[in-house]
């Protein structure tokens, strides 16, 4: 009995060992691919940014042109996120609660900014709101154009975050609130909005992280004038082209840190949200 059981477990144990080996191999491959393609290049940027010591780093990010670009990037991204929060929630609301002909089509064009190359996005805005605007609206080469380009590319984030949550929300509470005499606005603010908040925040965070690093859509329409319409990514591009890699790397690190902090904050909020659910 013991002999047969031994012979039966032996190959199983063997295959388990080879499976463990195999899994270590696939894990190694995944980690290796990621390190080689993503981690090492990014580490190189951080390393290059400190080439001139901490002093050099600080000097690079406090030079007036870099500072102006960073300031514009953050303020424009904040403004864009604020608009996205309002308009994104509104669009999600209309797509979930309203019904009209062509709603399916409207729903599918929401993703267009993700599918459209950013350089084309900038060109489309320039075609309508540029120097030869058929509407007579020319915002090209102004700060408005920066915001417009960022709004275009970040449109889907809040909509797509809020939409599924809004679909799942139980209508009972709203009906109870309404039957107790709450107006539509009060019901929205007191009952629906608290439920949507985690989704709105996570959409906003993703949109902000995207805005801060956006490049393609702003290149054509903003004109890239230093101190006026030059955003951080365009500043970095310019510094690389003129050979100042260390300066470019320093500003890149600032962008990286901000994006990571925002995404990290988002994951904290999400974790709290899910714990709350349980």
């Amino acid at each position, binding site marked *: 009995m013991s002999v047969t059981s031994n012979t039966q477990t032996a190959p199983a144990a063997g295959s388990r060992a080879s*499976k463990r080996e*195999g*899994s270590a191999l*696939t*894990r190694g*491959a*995944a*980690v290796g691919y*990621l390190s080689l393609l*993503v981690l090492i*290049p990014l580490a190189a*940027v951080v390393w290059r940014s400190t080439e001139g010591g901490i002093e050099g780093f600080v000097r690079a990010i406090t030079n007036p042109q870099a500072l102006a670009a960073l300031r514009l990037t953050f303020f424009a991204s904040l403004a864009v996120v604020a608009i996205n929060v309002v*308009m994104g929630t*509104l*669009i999600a*609301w*209309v*797509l*979930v609660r*309203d019904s*009209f002909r062509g709603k399916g089509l*409207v729903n*599918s*064009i929401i*993703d*267009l900014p993700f*599918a*459209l*190359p*950013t*350089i*084309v996005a900038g*060109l*489309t*805005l320039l*075609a*309508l709101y540029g120097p030869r605007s*058929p509407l007579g609206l020319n915002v090209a080469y102004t700060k408005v154009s920066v915001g417009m380009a960022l709004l*275009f590319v970040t449109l889907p984030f809040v909509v797509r975050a809020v939409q599924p949550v809004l*679909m799942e929300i139980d209508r009972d509470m709203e009906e109870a609130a309404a039957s107790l005499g709450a107006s539509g606005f009060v019901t929205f603010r007191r009952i629906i909005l608290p439920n949507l908040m985690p989704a709105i925040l996570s959409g906003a965070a*993703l949109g902000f*992280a995207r805005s*801060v690093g*956006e*490049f*393609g859509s702003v290149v*054509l329409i903003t004109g890239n004038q230093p101190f006026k319409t030059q955003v*951080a*990514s*365009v500043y*970095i*591009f310019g510094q*690389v082209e003129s050979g100042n*890699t260390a300066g470019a*790397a320093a500003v*890149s690190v600032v*962008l*990286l840190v901000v*994006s*990571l902090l925002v995404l990290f904050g988002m994951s904290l909020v999400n974790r709290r949200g899910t714990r709350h659910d349980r």
Partner: protein
Amino acid sequence: MTASRITLRTLALGYLALLLVLPVSMVFVRTFSNGLGAVWEAVTRPEALHALWLTLLVAVIAVTANTVFGIVCALVLVRHEFRGKALLNAVLDLPLAVSPVVVGLALLIIYGRTSLVGGWLAEAGIRIVFSTPGIILATIFVSLPFVVREVVPVLREIGTEQEQAASTLGASAFQTFRLVTLPAIRSGVAYGIVLTTARAIGEFGAVSLVSGKLAGRTETLTIYVEDRFQSFDLVGCYTAAVVLAVIAVATLLLTNLTSPKEEY
């Protein structure tokens, strides 16, 4: 109630029209107002065709690499327990949080001619920067997370019961993967591939820095759009943009077909 509903609908649709629909339509109008002949001439120019060819070549390589990696990585994330898994998960999202320009800069620092790796490769006769390999690396970087992110939830959902049954019945690990796991995650993989392709074809910032923008050699279609714009060749510029926009719309249609998520 109905009045407020109509107000909301008007606001939402108006916003979408002004920000999205009208600008995109305008590019089509601008392009075709030059007449079909001019459009055809612009598309069939050698530099335009080369840019299109290079874009597709780079996309095919990047998508293949990221699909294989994406499936392996999703299996590792869902089926294995190990230290540092949370870190791996976080690193996977990095490409979405990094500015494309920073990606380009990173590749220049590592593979540029004056860098250690770049100098060493140059001695071996391999050029990365200002050449196709650099464009491919940049494209792989920016489109890396999509397949993983789509496959992970599907993999989690299907569980391991069928795989265990297959391996009990004597299937090898590879057979189990090919005959049981792969068919089950097909929809997630397909959706991931569509998203990766869209990102790969549209990449501009990172490619802009590492390609050197050599006309007819390292210009992808997005770079070509900018190049034509800077040379005041609006017909060429708008035509190339329309080609990209058509690819984007086709991607969108494919996304709707392949999306494993429920309909809104």
